[in-house]
């Protein structure tokens, strides 16, 4: 079976940065890009806040740059998706969706987060036929039409702003009576006259026929009033959920499903398993913080590998005793990562 020192899962800024550092450290990493190759940034239009791009950069371009940079140092990138990891065996046993099986001494998880959906039956019914979570992908189809954007955060305002240049009118539905978005994004919206912001308003049903979406039923909580908007597109921008499904049985997760790491590190509760990027960050969720944590994960992986001692066929870590607990396995003292609940 193929054996690796370092296996990285995910191809956003965290995964590629981990790959750059791991390959430069001689860990010969393999990176499984997964289904969303390039991560969430491939659906973003312009990225203006990543240091080094003085004039901004398109999200997809930035991801292609990061991919090339990681390949330059020898990272092997595969497009398949990791579907299972056996964390009980060392090296860890990894299975991919295309049937590959590998062993790896360390795992770096950078699986990111995915767009959240409202959960309406009509949302799934009309997905790709009027319902979208990507204005930069699908806004083109709504030129001179009316659309709804759902959400009150930065993503929702970014989607509404992008669409306002294409469509006739944007109805921005905000569940609460204020935005969650940053001030700079709210200010940007204030200068656009074809976006109607409807506070205290929820999307209760998506209406349509064989040709796709043709309306939205909305409910104003404050006025206890339901009405119907005639729109052709619905863009959902209500936040993200971490991609941790295949790890939930083994790794410590917080109440919202994000992977817990030891503060100041990328270490998870399992020695040799590291997490970086949005999959472990519900607070900042920026490309630059993801990239920074990717660097931390690769450095932690490299230090983990170089600090292990092998005794009687068992690898143990004998450093960093202040952030770990010592347990005994077959008479050998080993360090176990411990995360406070």
């Amino acid at each position, binding site marked *: 079976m193929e054996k690796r020192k370092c296996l990285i899962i995910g191809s956003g800024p965290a995964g590629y940065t981990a790959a750059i550092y791991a390959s430069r450290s001689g860990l010969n990493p393999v990176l499984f890009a997964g*289904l*969303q*190759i*390039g991560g969430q*940034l*491939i*659906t*973003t239009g312009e990225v203006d806040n990543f240091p080094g791009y003085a004039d901004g950069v*398109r*999200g*997809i371009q930035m*991801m*292609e740059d990061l991919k090339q940079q990681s390949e330059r140092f020898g990272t092997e990138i595969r*497009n*398949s*998706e990791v579907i299972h990891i056996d964390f009980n065996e060392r090296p860890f046993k990894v299975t991919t*969706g*295309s*049937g590959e099986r590998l062993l790896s001494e360390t795992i770096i998880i950078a699986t990111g987060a995915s767009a959240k959906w409202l959960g309406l039956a009509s949302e799934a019914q009309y*997905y*790709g*036929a*009027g319902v*979208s979570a*990507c204005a*930069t*992908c*699908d806004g*083109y*189809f709504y030129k001179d039409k009316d659309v709804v954007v759902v959400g009150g955060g930065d993503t929702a305002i970014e989607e509404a702003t992008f669409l306002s240049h294409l469509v006739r009118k944007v109805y921005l539905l905000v569940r609460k009576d204020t935005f969650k978005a940053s001030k700079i994004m709210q200010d940007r919206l204030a200068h656009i006259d074809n976006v109607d912001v409807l506070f205290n308003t929820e999307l209760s049903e998506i209406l349509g026929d064989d*040709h*796709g979406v043709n309306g939205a039923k909305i409910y104003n909580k404050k006025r206890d009033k339901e009405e119907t908007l005639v729109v052709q597109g619905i863009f959902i921008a209500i936040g993200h959920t971490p991609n941790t499904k295949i790890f939930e049985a083994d790794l410590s997760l917080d109440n919202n499903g994000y992977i817990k790491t030891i503060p100041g590190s990328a270490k998870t509760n399992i020695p040799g398993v590291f997490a970086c990027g949005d999959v472990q960050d519900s607070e900042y969720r920026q490309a630059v913080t993801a990239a920074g944590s990717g660097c931390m994960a690769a450095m932690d992986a490299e230090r983990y590998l170089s600090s292990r001692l092998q005794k009687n066929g068992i690898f143990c870590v004998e450093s960093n005793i202040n952030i770990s607990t010592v347990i005994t396995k077959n008479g050998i003292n080993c360090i176990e990562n411990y995360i406070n609940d």
Partner: protein
Amino acid sequence: MNIFNNLEKPVLLQFSATWCGPCRALTPVIDQVEIKMTEHADVKRIDIDKQAQIASDFSIRAVPTLVLLDKNGEIFWRHTGLISEKDIIQQIENLK
């Protein structure tokens, strides 16, 4: 849709656009499908900006969208968004 009648093999249509990030991310996956399934299906790439009529004929309202046609030109399967190579190949296998 006349151009897709009486086909020698099933056809996988990839509707995409140069400005669409996920479309560019999906392209290497489709490249692999084309190589592996060359005996069983043809792959046609449709740029919706250059071939707007075909996109309209297939009611495309989001990209990337994949449409798999059987030999009679009938739609056998349709998918919007990113998807794995394995799942696309499975759909082509289902047509055998």
